[in-house]
């Protein structure tokens, strides 16, 4: 993607091509981020779509203040998830048929679906902050510095959350496996 700052500035001036590039760059990442945060791939579709429509409506309010555009975009996604979880009393469980993983044959795909479901289910045992770190680090490939930027925390705090998050994930995955 070309220089993000100039791209965003063009998008703020209603340049459709620039906005389309931003959309293509971030769509999958935001989708994965939301899926891991809420553990439901179908609900994540609607939320992802809404994130980009909200971004379209509010991009003119985005100001460059030393923070990357992605931090702002993920903040919108985060708020969308918070809003969703607040409205939803009960967390929905998976949707086997709707998980799609890239490049697998049917058997591999079925096995991978199980793996993905396990991780999604285990992620529900994490605290909100832990899940945020794990989502950003492992689905959106953010560095610790970027995660710290998005979450407004120190890098040390993010590393600690990363550690405790992986431990909690490990524990939840072990429990799930034992139950099976």
């Amino acid at each position: 993607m070309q220089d993000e700052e100039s791209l965003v500035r063009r998008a703020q001036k209603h340049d459709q091509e620039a906005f389309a590039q931003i959309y293509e760059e971030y769509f999958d990442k935001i989708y994965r981020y939301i899926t891991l945060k809420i553990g439901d791939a179908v609900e994540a579709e609607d939320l992802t779509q809404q994130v980009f429509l909200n971004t379209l409506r509010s991009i003119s309010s985005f100001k460059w203040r030393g923070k990357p555009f992605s931090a702002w975009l993920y903040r919108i996604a985060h708020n969308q998830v918070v809003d969703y979880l607040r409205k939803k009393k009960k967390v929905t469980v998976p949707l086997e048929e709707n998980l799609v993983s890239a490049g697998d044959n049917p058997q591999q795909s079925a096995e991978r679906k199980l793996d993905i479901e396990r991780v999604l289910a285990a992620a529900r045992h994490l605290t909100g902050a832990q899940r945020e770190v794990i989502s950003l680090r492992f689905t959106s490939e953010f560095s610790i510095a970027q995660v710290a930027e998005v979450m407004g925390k120190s890098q040390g705090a993010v590393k600690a959350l990363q550690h405790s998050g992986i431990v909690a994930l490990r524990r939840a995955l072990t429990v799930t496996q034992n139950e099976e």
Partner: protein
Amino acid sequence: MKNKEFDNILDECLERLLVKGESLEQCLERYPEQAAELKPLLETALAAREASAIQPRPDFRARARYQFHSALKEAAAGKGRTSWGWFPRWATVMAIVLVLVLGGGGTVVAADGSMPDSLLYSVKLATEQVRLTLTPSQMGKARLCAQLVDRRVTEIAYMANNGDSQQVEMLTRRLDDKLDLLVVLVGGEEAASAPGMLMAPPTEEAAAPTVPPTTEDSSPSPALAPSPDKGWGGGDSAQNGQNGTRAQLMDTVASDAASNRVALRAVLDEAPESVKGALRRALAVSEAGYDEVLAALEQS
């Protein structure tokens, strides 16, 4: 303090493992004292990373892209219009009567957002034809035609994501026809002289519109209907402001050309191998056609 040190080591290993592509063994060799504690955590991190292979479903991706591009255009236009906002009253009434006769009001509305794999798609084509025919002015027809071109591109993207190369080929021919028509319309020739496209009755495939409304249809949600800013019809009530209208059309076409090029190329990157050939042809037709339309607009 010890925890903080371990947090740093864990993060270092994660960077090596997940970003730099080192193996688990290589990572553990660097920190033999912490290896026992690190190993299960790194394995868990790898499992979490696997979850990142989740991809949005192709049909959802196509629908979302379509809706987003519609919203984008709406935002660029800066104002909303009703679907019939540009249409003279008499023509609105006539068109409504006709489309009701052809397909039933609810069906027509539902068909507007339908895709080629839907039963309602033939109604959509018939409705487009009626609207094109009833649009009174040359410039209005051109604007409508530009919208139809945009629709065909969206449909191509949708069918490519579904892996249907035959439909992509078919839609590419329709796209080509509409781009040719658009060149004729913006070139100043009389609409009726455009090779049998406007005044002809609906084509064979569009002529079977008596499909009852159905809730089982696979058409996208009403949210995927054409963006309200563009509306349907596009009839100019006067010749005044013709130059401004022309400039607006040029902006619209240039903008559509750019965003559709981005969209089709993005689809091409992710589409199944079996449709890539058809999709490349569609992309070539789209790019060449848009160039021709823009050249015609500049010349006239």
